[in-house]
């Protein structure tokens, strides 16, 4: 397994993604005395309590004060520490947006934001706690690497890579248990490189976060029942986006669907669309996500179903896009 990973698939099914982050942080803390953890009254919710137990002198709870959380982390990083700061995605990306922009990113400092309860994963808390704009906000801030891992293993990999890579990171993870996508962490994870989790030649579904598992389920169903060969890309890194994987999908399949637990404005779908449009190649395209409205309240899986970003919604979207005609004026022999 990669990077001294001590988890098994049992861990990944018994620990929530945030709990896996908490364990990964303890591992980093043991190996690197400059790693510190900060939160804004959400140690319990963001699962960094284990770090507090083991390293009380390197743990700082600043109270319910997100701007202060980011500023203090920036000051610490400036002095040579590597802060991991955790709060809910909605507050990390918006309550402290000015500090994220100016203190962390403008100064290009080595601090890592682990934003939990992303998308609609804090479902019943409602729109005050749903983070449906964070990808749009964060991916437009220079210097910031933006990652939305698909499951616990990928979260582990992303956290470890964030430590190894200088500069600010924004890693958005979910509140609760994510369906396990990978069998372990050893699948060659690289920041900025999409993972093809299902082969296909008819259409490509590009997803991030908890939607990747749903896309994989949809792809398996469509292959078995309708003979549609769906390529599924786990686009865990929203910025820098994997342009090569997108362009290859354009050329190989000519049909792309993006799926994200985020507003369809400004997130993964927009990032992929920018690459597709600039390629100049014809491509049927559909964005699945939250259609520029506030999401309903409910359990996360129910909300995903209502939004059409679960496997059923993705199956329907694939059927729709497979019917689209788009290629009559295009030259299939063009080079990429």
């Amino acid at each position, binding site marked *: 397994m990669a990077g001294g990973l001590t988890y098994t698939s049992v861990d990944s099914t018994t620990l929530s993604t945030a709990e896996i982050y908490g364990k990964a942080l303890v591992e980093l803390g043991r190996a690197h005395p400059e790693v510190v953890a900060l939160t804004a009254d959400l140690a319990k919710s963001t699962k960094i309590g284990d770090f507090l137990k083991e390293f009380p002198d390197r743990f700082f709870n600043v109270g319910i004060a997100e701007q*202060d959380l980011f500023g203090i982390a920036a000051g610490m990083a400036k002095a040579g520490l590597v802060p991991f700061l955790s709060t809910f995605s909605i507050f990390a990306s918006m309550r402290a947006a000015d500090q994220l922009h100016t203190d962390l990113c403008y*100064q290009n400092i080595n601090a890592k934001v682990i934003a939990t309860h992303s998308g609609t994963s804090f479902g019943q808390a409602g729109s005050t706690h749903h983070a449906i704009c964070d990808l749009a906000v964060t991916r437009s801030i220079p210097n910031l690497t933006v990652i939305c891992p698909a499951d616990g293993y990928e979260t582990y990999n992303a956290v470890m890579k964030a430590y190894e890579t200088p500069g600010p990171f924004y890693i958005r993870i979910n509140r609760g248990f994510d369906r396990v996508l990978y069998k372990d962490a050893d699948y060659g994870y690289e920041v900025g490189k999409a993972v093809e989790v299902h082969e296909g030649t008819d259409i490509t579904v590009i997803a991030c976060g908890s939607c990747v598992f749903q896309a994989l389920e949809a792809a398996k169903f469509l292959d078995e029942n309708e003979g549609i060969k769906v390529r599924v890309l786990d686009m865990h890194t929203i910025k820098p986006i994997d342009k090569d994987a997108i362009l290859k999908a354009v050329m190989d399949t000519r049909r792309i669907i993006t799926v994200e637990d985020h507003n369809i404005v400004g997130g993964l779908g927009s990032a992929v669309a920018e690459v597709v449009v600039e390629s100049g190649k014809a491509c049927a395209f559909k964005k699945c996500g939250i259609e520029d409205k506030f999401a309903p309240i409910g359990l996360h899986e129910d909300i995903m179903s209502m939004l059409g970003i679960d496997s059923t919604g993705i199956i329907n979207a694939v059927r729709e896009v497979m019917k689209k005609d788009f290629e009559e004026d295009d030259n299939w022999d063009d080079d990429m």
Partner: protein
Amino acid sequence: MPLSKTEWLALEKKANELRELTLETTHWAGSGHIGGGMSVLDILTVLYHKYMKLDKNDPDWEDRDRCILSKGHAAIAYAPVLCDFGFNDVEMLKTFNLSGSKMGMHLDSTKIRGVDASTGSLGHGLPIAVGTALAARVLGKDYWTYCILGDGECDEGSNWEAAMAAANFKVTNLISFVDRNRCMIDGRTEDVMKLEPFADKWTAFGFIVKEVDGQNIKELCEAIDFAHENKTDKPVMIICNTKKGAGIDFIEDDYLWHYGAFDDEKYEKAKESLKKYYAGRVARAEKEGE
């Protein structure tokens, strides 16, 4: 160790040189935040020329004292301080605010040597300074962190978040200043958004507060000495009562000079005013110094 008359006079001389260089930079740039630049200059002078432990050849020396200028718009004074100190070429000041320059009206810590934090958006400095000071504790270092706030920026709630944190975490290796010039862009602080009882607010947030004349080097030094010797677990806040545009008589204490331009005539008038101002400051040091 009380400030000797000789040292006081030397600091007056340096402060005067820096006022002149700030004025000159404003003239080169065509305009600048001259009001708040002049009010904060004495604080910067005593920090950089009496107290801060720095290596002129290595602005990033990890054991150095830190200065977080939260009122980042005072770069028109801060840039001259950092250039005069030797961290950057003084010639760079001639490019201040010009297209393509590394040096804009808010200094970029990734481009200008000696800048401990990129500030400009207000209410950011104190949280950063708390972090830098806490880092010294984690790293086992004994450097001091100084943070200079504007008074108008104390309207920003983030300062008070940081004030709570500084007291809560007993951050006594942090010494903070407010440049209390009582002016902000749209008017006087007490007319736009009341800050008073200002000292009481900091006291209530858990600080030991000293109030001084921020244009009196001796008083500034006494307050910093007091803060260095502080044995309590409370951080020290030094409220520096200053005058916006200090030293330039025709802009002094006038909020309309938050930002302004000096044509050649005003520039010459300002130079004359600074000369007189310096003479008065020297006379005070001669009289009150020991």
